[in-house]
């Protein structure tokens, strides 16, 4: 009850017109930054920190938080409309959202994303108020064995991402794991598969990889046809139908759960919840074979998970001072610049500020919805630009976004390389999602396992004897067993490779 009273006080401050204006400016700037391919929330928030210099801490942090979740939503727009993820976490939205856009239903996809983001973000913020501390303490029980087991659960969902062939999906997944091996070995510090190239010591960045696999490959595929009439269907409706809303209700609920729970665990990152949510939706669907053709559940679930994660990731930051992702690390820096040090004493020392920021998260989520629903026709109008011109502009933004990550032209070359790989995979009907998911999970899983074995001095039973990791391993094994059985049953009688 005390939390609710403090929250109401926070609303009293956050609803002041000046603070509302800062939240509005933050949401708008965040959405615009998020729309630019490659410039994700972390880079966007970092880029706009100077805009808050000279402000008081409260408006500065309200504005930065609004930029953060505005950018999370903005990344969806280009994923849906031009198959180029605005940020890496939106990559999975390309699979269904872009197919919806090609069928003239891009507006509905964006509207469902906005609604799902609003619901996911709001519920996660409620969690921040009601159960932040106990849940964070629970999340802190995640040591390396639990982390390894959790990542294995994520990896087990790869079979759910398979299209028409389990072998092709597994090849893609193993290739992703191998690509993740490139760079410095995180435990012993030995370089692996770098071939003397300094640029490879950090491995391949996820942004150049997804920009290449999805964005550049899409442009190459479309360039093959002479007319390049990519959007042959006229945009029919900009608002979701009643059936769309009904089909999205459960995915939104599940996406909220996935995003919220993973947001509590530091180090998971924003991409894992979206991919896991997509895999969950495909597994839960009565028509999984229709995934990849524009299923709204494949947009609603991941987009909800994305924003639920974004808001939940603030919980370990606020309560323990642990930034769980690059973006929350930037947020932490911004808080510290303003003399606010996140951690267990934050609520005592800066209670008024924190509750005002939490209240502004609610307001920001509503603002984002109000801001984005009317803007959908404007975003969809992008598709009226002739594709030959649009594709060139997308290439320019990809180059800027990729280059700006490390100020490196090498990353542009990486994007081109993965563009060619994505082009070949599309031709061969090899799914891209398993590669991206395993590329992210691989290093986390390997580090978790090797640290676990270091803890137990090489005794692998540490993974099974700890209750939490043991339970997660059982779940992973069950998922692998059932999905493998399903996959083989599905292709029984068929002969696809």
């Amino acid at each position, binding site marked *: 009850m005390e939390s609710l009273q403090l929250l109401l006080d926070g609303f009293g401050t956050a609803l002041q017109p000046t603070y509302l204006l800062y939240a509005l400016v933050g949401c708008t700037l965040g959405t615009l930054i998020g729309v630019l391919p490659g*410039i994700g929330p972390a880079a966007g928030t970092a*880029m*706009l920190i*100077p805009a808050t210099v000279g402000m008081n801490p409260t408006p500065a942090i309200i504005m930065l938080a609004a930029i953060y979740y505005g950018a999370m939503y903005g990344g969806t727009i280009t994923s849906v409309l031009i198959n180029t993820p605005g940020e890496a976490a939106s990559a999975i939205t390309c699979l269904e959202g872009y197919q919806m856009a090609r069928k003239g239903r891009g507006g509905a996809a964006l509207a469902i994303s906005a609604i799902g983001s609003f619901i996911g973000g709001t519920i996660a913020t409620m969690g921040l108020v009601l159960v932040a501390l106990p849940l964070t303490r629970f999340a802190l029980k995640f040591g390396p064995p639990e982390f390894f087991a959790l990542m294995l659960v994520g990896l087990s969902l790869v079979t759910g991402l398979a299209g028409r062939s389990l*072998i092709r999906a*597994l*090849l893609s997944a*193993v290739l992703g*794991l*191998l690509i993740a*091996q490139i760079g410095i*070995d995180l*435990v*012993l510090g*030995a370089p*692996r*598969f770098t071939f003397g190239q300094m640029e490879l010591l950090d491995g391949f960045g996820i942004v150049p990889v997804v920009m290449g696999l999805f964005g*550049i490959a899409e*442009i*190459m595929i479309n*360039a*093959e*046809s*002479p007319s*390049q009439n990519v959007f042959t269907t006229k945009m029919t409706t900009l608002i979701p139908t009643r059936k769309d809303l009904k089909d999205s209700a459960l995915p939104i609920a599940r996406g909220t759960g996935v995003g919220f729970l993973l947001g509590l665990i530091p180090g998971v990152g924003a991409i894992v919840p979206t991919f896991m949510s997509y895999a969950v939706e495909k597994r839960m669907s009565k028509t999984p074979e229709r995934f990849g053709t524009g299923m709204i559940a494949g947009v609603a679930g991941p987009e909800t998970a994305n924003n639920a994660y974004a808001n939940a990731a603030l919980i370990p930051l606020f309560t323990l001072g642990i930034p769980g992702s690059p973006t929350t690390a930037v947020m932490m820096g911004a808080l510290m610049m303003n003399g606010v040090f996140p951690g267990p004493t934050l609520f005592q020392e800066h209670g008024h500020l924190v509750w005002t920021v939490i209240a502004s998260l609610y307001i920001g989520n509503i603002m984002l919805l109000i801001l984005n629903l009317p803007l959908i026709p404007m975003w969809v109008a992008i598709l009226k630009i*002739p*594709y*030959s*011109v649009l*594709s*060139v*502009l997308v*290439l*320019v933004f990809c*180059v*800027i976004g990729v*280059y*700006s990550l490390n*100020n490196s*032209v*090498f990353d*542009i*070359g990486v*994007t*081109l390389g993965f*563009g*060619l790989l994505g082009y070949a995979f599309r*031709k*061969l009907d*090899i799914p891209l999602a398993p590669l991206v998911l395993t590329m992210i999970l691989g290093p986390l899983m*390997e580090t978790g*396992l*090797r640290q676990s*074995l*270091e803890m137990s*001095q*090489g005794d692998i039973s540490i993974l099974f004897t700890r209750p939490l990791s043991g339970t997660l391993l059982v779940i992973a094994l069950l998922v692998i067993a059932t999905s493998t059985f399903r996959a083989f049953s599905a292709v029984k009688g068929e*002969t*696809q*490779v």
Partner: protein
Amino acid sequence: MSMKRPYQITGVVFLILAAFIAWESLELQFYSYIGPGPGFFPFWLALVLGTLAVLMILQATFRRTDPMPADFFASRAGYLRVGAIVLALTATTALMKVLGFQLTMLGIIIFLLFALGRPSLVVTLLVSVAGSFGCFYLFNRLLRVPLPTAFFGF
């Protein structure tokens, strides 16, 4: 025509890749006193990749495969357009540090517009100037994103 031959070729490519990775990973420490070394995971992953590649080749050879999609091979003009994109991004990688962002992008955009769609002169000029000088102003000056400059401040 079926997808038999493309999948056989893909399987062979994956098999060669797996052999190469397994060979390279043997150069790395396989196991240390604290558990698996840097070569442990790549070696086993390479074996799994190799096994899957062999399965792909066997399935493609001995079972019926999908028919080849009509658009599997593009026309000559289609491949030339794809080649133009590859060439443009290769040139961007090679030239951006030398010529700077603005001049490189100006040239690349004009080339790509010509190669992909040949819009009118006005559109070409507008898009190329906006995509090069306009983007540089927006990102470098307003958003402080560092983009390379070369001679004469370009």
